[in-house]
C-alpha cells in the first residue's frame, strides 16, 4: 500500500521557510538555465524560421558565407540568365537578384561601435521577398539614388537610423528614407541599391545571387556525404567550368550561419546547467535530509503501522520531486518576463551584429521542467534510501 500523496504535499507545507528557500534557490538555478536557452532559441529561430525552401542562394565555391563569397558581375548575370530552374515572370524576367554584403561600422546610442550588415540589392529581391518584407515607415529607396532603408531593430539600437537621418558610408552621405520589418535576420540590416552599395564599397561584384526556383526543382545538398547529387542543381553548378557556384536553399544557408553563436550559447547553457545543477541538487539533498531527520519519529510510526520500505522510498522521492518541480515552475515564472526582451551580439560567422529577442518557447519550458525533474531524481535518491532503510524500532526510539 502506498502512502497517500496528501502526506507528501502536507509535509512540504509544514516547513514553510525551508521549503520556500529551497524552491526559490532551485528556481533561480532553473531560471538561469532557461534564460540562456531562451537566448539560443531566440537567435536560432530568427534565422531558421524564415529560411525559404523555394529560394536558393548562390555562393562562390569554397565560401562559407556571404562575407567570403564574391562574384564577378558577368558571372552573376550568367547564373541568373542561364538557369532553366529559375522562375520567370512576364513583367520581371527571371526572379533572381544579385546582392552585395558588407559590414559598416556604426555607433550605438551609448557610443560603442558595432558592425552592422549593409546589403545592396536589386529590385528583383523585393519581388522574390513579396510580403515577407514590409515597409512600416517612410518608403522604399529609389533605384540609383543615395538612399537607404533600415531594419526595424536598428532604429533604437544604432545612431542615425531614423527616417530623415543621414548616414555617411565611405565618402557618400545616404539618406534614411524608410524602415522595414522582417521576421528573419534582415531586420538588423541596412539596405541600399546594389549599384550604389558597390560604388561606395569600392567592390567589383556582388557577394551572392539569390533566385526563386520553380516548384519541384531538385536542388541537392552541398553538405551531403560525397558531394551533392550530380543531377541536382547544386551538383551541376559545383563543377561548372564557366560559372561554378555553391548552391544552397535559403533555409540551409541561414542554418549554416547560426552554428557558431548557436553552439556557443547552447554550450554556455549546458555548462551552467551542469555546474549550477550540482549546487541545486546539494540544496535539495540538504533540505530533504533535514526533513527526514526531523521526521524520524513519523517514519518509525509509518514503518510500525505496516508500510513497507518501498512506499516510504516512493513518498520521499515524490517529496523531493515535488520540491524540485515547484522550483522548476518558479524558474519558468522568473524567466517569463525576459521573453521578448531585445538583445544583440556579434554573429561570429558574419562578423556583424544581430539583434534578437529572448524567446521562452515550449522547448525552453520543457527543458526547464525536465531539468528540475532530473534535479529531483538526483537529489531525492539518497535521502529517500536513507528513510526507507530505517528500522521501525530505531526510528521510534530517536527523539
Amino acid at each position, binding site marked *: 500500500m502506498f502512502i497517500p500523496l496528501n502526506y507528501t504535499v502536507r509535509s512540504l507545507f509544514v516547513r514553510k*521557510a*525551508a521549503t520556500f*528557500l*529551497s524552491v*526559490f*534557490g532551485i528556481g*533561480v*538555478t532553473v*531560471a*538561469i538555465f532557461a*534564460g*540562456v536557452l531562451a*537566448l539560443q532559441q531566440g537567435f536560432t529561430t530568427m534565422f531558421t524560421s524564415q529560411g525559404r525552401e523555394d529560394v536558393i542562394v548562390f555562393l*562562390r*565555391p*569554397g*565560401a*562559407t558565407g556571404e*562575407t*567570403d563569397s564574391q562574384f564577378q558581375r558577368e558571372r552573376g548575370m550568367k547564373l541568373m540568365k542561364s538557369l532553366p530552374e529559375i522562375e520567370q515572370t512576364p513583367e520581371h524576367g527571371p526572379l533572381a537578384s544579385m546582392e552585395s554584403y*558588407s*559590414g*559598416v*561600422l556604426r555607433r*550605438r546610442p551609448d557610443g*560603442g*561601435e*558595432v*558592425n552592422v550588415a549593409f546589403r545592396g540589392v536589386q529590385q528583383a529581391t523585393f519581388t522574390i521577398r513579396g510580403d515577407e518584407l514590409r515597409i512600416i515607415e517612410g518608403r522604399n529607396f529609389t533605384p540609383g539614388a543615395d538612399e537607404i532603408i533600415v531594419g526595424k531593430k536598428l532604429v533604437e539600437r544604432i545612431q542615425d537610423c531614423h527616417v530623415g537621418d543621414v548616414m555617411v*558610408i*565611405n*565618402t557618400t552621405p545616404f539618406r534614411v528614407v524608410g524602415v522595414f520589418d522582417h521576421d528573419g535576420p534582415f531586420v538588423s540590416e541596412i539596405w541600399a541599391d546594389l549599384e550604389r552599395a558597390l560604388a*561606395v*564599397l*569600392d*567592390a567589383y561584384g556582388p557577394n551572392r545571387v539569390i533566385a526563386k526556383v520553380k516548384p519541384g526543382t531538385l536542388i541537392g545538398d552541398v553538405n551531403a556525404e560525397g558531394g551533392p547529387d550530380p543531377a541536382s542543381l547544386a551538383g551541376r553548378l559545383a563543377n561548372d567550368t564557366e560559372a561554378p557556384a555553391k548552391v544552397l536553399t535559403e533555409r540551409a544557408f541561414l542554418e549554416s550561419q547560426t552554428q557558431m553563436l548557436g553552439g556557443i550559447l547552447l554550450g554556455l547553457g549546458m555548462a*551552467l546547467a551542469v*555546474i*549550477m545543477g*550540482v*549546487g*541545486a541538487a*546539494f*540544496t535539495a*539533498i*540538504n*533540505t530533504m*535530509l*533535514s526533513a527526514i531527520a526531523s521526521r524520524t519519529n513519523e517514519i518509525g510510526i509509518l514503518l510500525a503501522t505496516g508500510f513497507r520500505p518501498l512506499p516510504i522510498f516512493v513518498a520521499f522521492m515524490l517529496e523531493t520531486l515535488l520540491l524540485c518541480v515547484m522550483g522548476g515552475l518558479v524558474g519558468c515564472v522568473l524567466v517569463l518576463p525576459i521573453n521578448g526582451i531585445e*538583445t*544583440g*551580439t*556579434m554573429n*561570429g560567422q558574419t*562578423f556583424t*551584429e544581430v539583434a534578437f529577442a529572448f524567446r521562452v518557447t515550449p522547448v525552453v519550458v520543457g527543458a526547464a521542467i525536465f531539468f528540475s525533474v532530473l534535479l529531483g531524481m538526483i537529489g531525492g535518491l539518497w535521502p529517500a534510501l536513507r528513510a526507507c532503510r530505517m528500522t521501525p524500532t530505531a526510528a521510534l526510539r530517536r*527523539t
Partner: protein
Amino acid sequence: MLKLAWRNLIAHPIRSILTSASVCIAILLLCLLRSIVTTLDAGIEAASATRLIVMSSISLFVDMPVSYQQRIEQVDGVDVIGKWQWFGGYYQNPRNFFAQFAVDPEHLFDMYPECQLDEEAKQRFLSTRNGCIIGRKLADDPNFAWKVGDKIPLVGALFPHPDGGAWEFEVCGVYTSSAANFDERTMMFQWKFFEETLRTSGQDPGVGVFVFRCEPGANVERIMGEVTAMFENGPMSVRCAPESEFQRMFISMMGDIPMLLGWIGTAVFVALLLGCVNTMLMAGREQVRDIGIYKALGFDDVTAFRVLVTQSLLLCVIGGAAGIGLTLALKPGIAAAIAAMFPVFIVADETLIFAAVLIVLLGLAAGIVPAWRASRMKPIEALRAEH
C-alpha cells in the same frame, strides 16, 4: 568559540559538506564568469601605446589600396609601417578555424617585440617565398600538429588561389607571445607571396589594416589627424586610431554578452545565498536547546549570536577557499578549451579578492537571521524547545 562552531558543523558532516560544496561551486562559477569579462578587456590594457592602426572608415570588411602605404609614410613623424590582410582560409574543413594574415615580415618583428621567434627561424621565414610562422598554441593543436618544415595547404575562401587549388605554405618557425593581445593561434605569411600569387590572375589585393609607429617625440594626435584628412575625399576614406581603441571596438561588437554574463553571476550569487540561509536556518533550529544551555550557564546574547555566525562564516570560507582553489586549478584547462576564441584566459587578482570579500559577506548574511533569532530567545523557552 571557533572550536564550538567547528564541532557543531562536524555534528552534521553531510549537510556541512554539501553546503560548503555548493558555495565552492558557486564561487568557481562566479570567478570564471568574471574572468571571461577580464579576458575580453585584457586586449585593451595590453595594447601598445606606440602602435597606430589605419583601417577603412566603413569597417574591417573593406580594404584600402596598397598605394596608401607610401602616402602614409610621407606624413611627417611616421616611422615604420606595415600591412596586414585577413586571409580567411581554412584547412580541409571550414570548422578548423584559425586566423591567418598576410604581413610584411620585416615590420612584423620590428613593431611587435611580443612576437618571439629565434633568429634562425626569422631568417628562414624572410628567405622562404611561401614561408609562414605559426603560434605555439596552433602548432600544439592536436588537430594540426604542425612543425617546422611542414607544408600547410589552405583553401582560400576569401582569396581563391588563381589555379583553383589550395594555397601552400611552409612552416618556418613557431613563435611564442609575451603579451595578452598577441595571439598564439595565428598564422602569418609573406605579403609578397600573397600579392604576387594573386597578380598572376590579374587580381590586385587590398590591405585590411596598416599598422605604423611614430618617431619618438612625434605629436600622435597631429599624425592621426593628418592621415585621416589625407584620404577624406576617397577613394576610400580611413580612420586612424591607437591600438587600444581598435581593441575596444572588438569588445564593443560583443554587444550585450558581457552584460548578460554579469547578470548570470548575480543570479548565481542569489541562488547561493538562499541555499546558505537555508542551511543556517536548519542549523539554528537544531541548536536552540544548546543555546538555551549556554544562556542558562550565564553566557550572554552576544555569545549565542557569535556561535551561529561563526558557523556560517566557517562554512562559506571553507567552501569559498575551495572554489578559489578550483578556479586556479582549472585555469589551464579552460584556457586550452577556449583557445580558439580567446588568446588567453586571465584570472585577475581583483576577481579573487572580489570573491573573497563576497564569501565573507555571504557568511555574515546567511548567519545573521538565525543568530539574531537565537540571541533573542529566553533561556527557559529555548530549553523547553522540542528537538
